[in-house]
């Protein structure tokens, strides 16, 4: 099996993605779920950089710009997500995700 | 330190580089860069560790003199018994620190407790990589050097949190949280105050920013950034924020004894404490170095006639002057309360820095103005700087006039 550097980068990012996914799926703590999601986002960023670096046009820098925007949005996401966690904590005195189901049908 | 092909420079200027090259010339070509880098690291570490030792002494001496006492002046040289005006004091302190008992509280997170000072020192040292110490002395030439500097600086907050949390002491933890609040609050004005420089210089590279300040108006007046309205304001904001970022008086709440015991340092003793102490001084040196680079013309000589003095000499002089001001301020001002501290950051420095951004933008846009318009340019920029300062300053100090104590 002949793997190019791009393959390795993508494998790296999918491994990170799945770690984040498993974490988000298995943990009950909202903060950890949020962190798992952040990990998945980072894995996506790694993909973007890998394709930029080994893709056809590294000089254009589209990947870098994308990642830059993605980081900014991730920051916003983290801020809002953690604010929600704090709000949930104030409301139900814990942050167990499975208990935050007051809106169920 | 390999920024420039330095053969064209005078001997004195390229002396450090030449020395290093001489040391590594016997190595094969492919190994040389590694040896060169290592030598640079060692050199920086040695220089700043010595500076740290001398600074602790100088600080105590200056504080003493301000309070009309001599400061430490007795520690003799080991085995000789000769007093050297206290020059051996750092040595004595170091020995004391090394031989003190290292106490880790029961229930503390031992790994993090150990890691915190190490990480703090490591991040502090990292910041030294991008400061141009001289015309030919820039350890790492980075395109985004300024960003690197502040990224490395931001990571120190994590170390402080580690220290506070790992101690398993509620005072440590509270103090660490408070320190974090302080550091994050002041990171904003710190970054905002340097954005105008980046805006005007059009570069994030420290060497380029310094190069751009190397011109003289009428051949005598240096065009450092601090000598513009926005640069002056930016430098002051930067300086105040740097005081807070390096936990210096009057913003030394995180580790002041009269606050939460000794803050996140409460449970540290011996060598770990010394590491914290060292990291603090390194941080102070690094921020001063950055301030010199961004605002005070870096290694540029103040007038062209004095350019024969090697550039690193000028850098050192400016750095030491700035460090002296740090100590002078410590000797002068009483500590702020935590609410005053955060209010100063959010209600005064941040808006001021934002306005300063507009001033710098105006400065860039009006760079073509000449004749009477140059006068108008200064007038407008000065008004933009001074007006908000007066308005915000009045609001900040509202109700804080001299009080009369009736029953005291």
């Amino acid at each position, binding site marked *: *099996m002949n793997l190019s*550097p*791009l*393959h*390795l980068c993508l494998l790296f990012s999918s491994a990170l*993605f*799945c*770690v*984040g*996914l*498993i974490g988000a*799926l*298995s943990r*009950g703590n909202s*903060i950890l779920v*949020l*962190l*798992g999601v*952040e*990990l998945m986002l980072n894995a996506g*960023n790694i993909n973007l*950089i890998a394709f*930029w*670096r*080994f*893709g056809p046009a*590294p000089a254009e*820098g589209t*990947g870098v*710009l994308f990642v*830059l*925007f993605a*980081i*900014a949005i991730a*920051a*916003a996401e983290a801020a*809002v997500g*953690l604010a929600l*966690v*704090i709000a949930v904590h*104030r409301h*139900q*005195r*814990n*942050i*167990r995700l499975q208990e935050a189901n007051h809106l169920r049908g | 330190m390999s920024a420039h092909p330095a053969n064209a420079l005078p001997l004195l200027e390229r002396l450090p580089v030449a020395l290093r090259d001489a040391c590594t010339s016997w190595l094969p070509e492919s190994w040389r860069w590694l040896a060169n880098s290592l030598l640079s690291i060692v050199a920086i570490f040695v220089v700043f560790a010595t500076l740290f030792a001398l600074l602790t002494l100088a600080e105590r001496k200056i504080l003493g003199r301000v309070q009309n006492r001599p400061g430490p002046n007795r520690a003799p040289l080991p085995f000789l018994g000769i007093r050297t005006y206290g020059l051996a004091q750092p040595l004595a302190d170091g020995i004391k620190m090394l031989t003190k008992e290292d106490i880790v509280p029961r229930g503390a*997170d031992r790994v*993090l407790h150990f890691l915190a000072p190490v990480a703090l020192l490591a991040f502090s040292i990292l910041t030294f990589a991008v400061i141009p110490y001289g015309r030919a002395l820039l350890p790492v030439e980075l*395109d985004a050097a300024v*960003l*690197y500097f*502040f990224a490395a600086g*931001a*990571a120190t907050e*994590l170390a402080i*949190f580690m220290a506070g*949390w790992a101690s398993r002491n509620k005072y440590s*933890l509270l103090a660490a949280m408070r320190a*974090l609040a302080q550091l994050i609050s002041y990171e904003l004005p710190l970054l905002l105050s340097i954005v105008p420089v980046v805006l005007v210089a059009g570069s*994030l590279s420290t060497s380029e920013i310094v190069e751009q300040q190397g011109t003289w108006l009428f051949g005598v007046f240096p065009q450092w950034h601090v000598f513009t309205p926005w640069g002056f304001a930016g430098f002051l904001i930067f300086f105040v924020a740097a005081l807070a970022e390096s936990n210096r008086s009057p913003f030394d709440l995180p580790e002041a004894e009269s606050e939460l015991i000794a803050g996140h340092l409460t449970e540290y003793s011996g060598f770990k404490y010394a590491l914290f102490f060292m990291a603090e001084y390194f941080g102070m040196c690094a921020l001063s170095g950055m301030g010199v680079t961004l605002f005070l013309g870096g290694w540029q000589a103040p007038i062209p006639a004095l350019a024969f003095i090697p550039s690193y000499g000028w850098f050192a002089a400016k750095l030491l002057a700035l460090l002296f001001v740090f100590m002078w301020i410590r000797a002068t001002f009483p500590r702020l309360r935590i609410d005053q501290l955060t209010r100063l950051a959010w209600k005064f420095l941040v808006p001021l820095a934002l306005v300063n951004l507009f001033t710098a933008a105006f400065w860039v846009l009006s760079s073509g103005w000449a004749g009477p318009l140059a006068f108008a340019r200064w007038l407008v920029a000065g008004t933009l700087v001074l007006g908000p300062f007066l308005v915000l300053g009045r609001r900040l100090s509202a109700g804080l006039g001299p009080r009369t104590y009736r029953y005291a």
Partner: protein
Amino acid sequence: MSLAFLLIAFLTVATAAVAMALRNLVRSALLLGASWAGVAAFYLWAGAEFLAFAQVLVYVGAISMVVLFAVLLTRPSRDEGAVSPASAGRLLPALIAGGSVLGVLVGAIVGSPLRTAAKPPLAFTVRELGLQLMGPHAASLVVVGALLTVALLGAVVIAAPGRPGDREDPR
């Protein structure tokens, strides 16, 4: 393909995995900080130095801090004990789902004939990045700025204590 990359990748994934498995939230957060730093190292390795520093500044410097604050602000009271570990009832489906996603991804990656372009010398400086940001992507930049502002304001509104009339503390 260098040793450096493998090292970075291993450390990043390993720290992330350990962080996701730990019971202690603070350690998890700190380890995730390390993992994010690993991602920054990857950026550095890939030649995107600006991104690397931005990643450190944003993730290690800011998001870690916010996470730690959130952890400390939402600590369970003493009687509730430590964070519950992943219960078996959730862990198994999680592993199955994650494993299947990983399998699909790996299969897809390995199976696809990705051609790597002949590497031209990288010349994407910060200056070019700035020109790109302020030129063709200026609109996106403004939108992202507005988004950040709104998100932060929203975060403050959400996290701020409610008005006195609000229902709070249903205990």
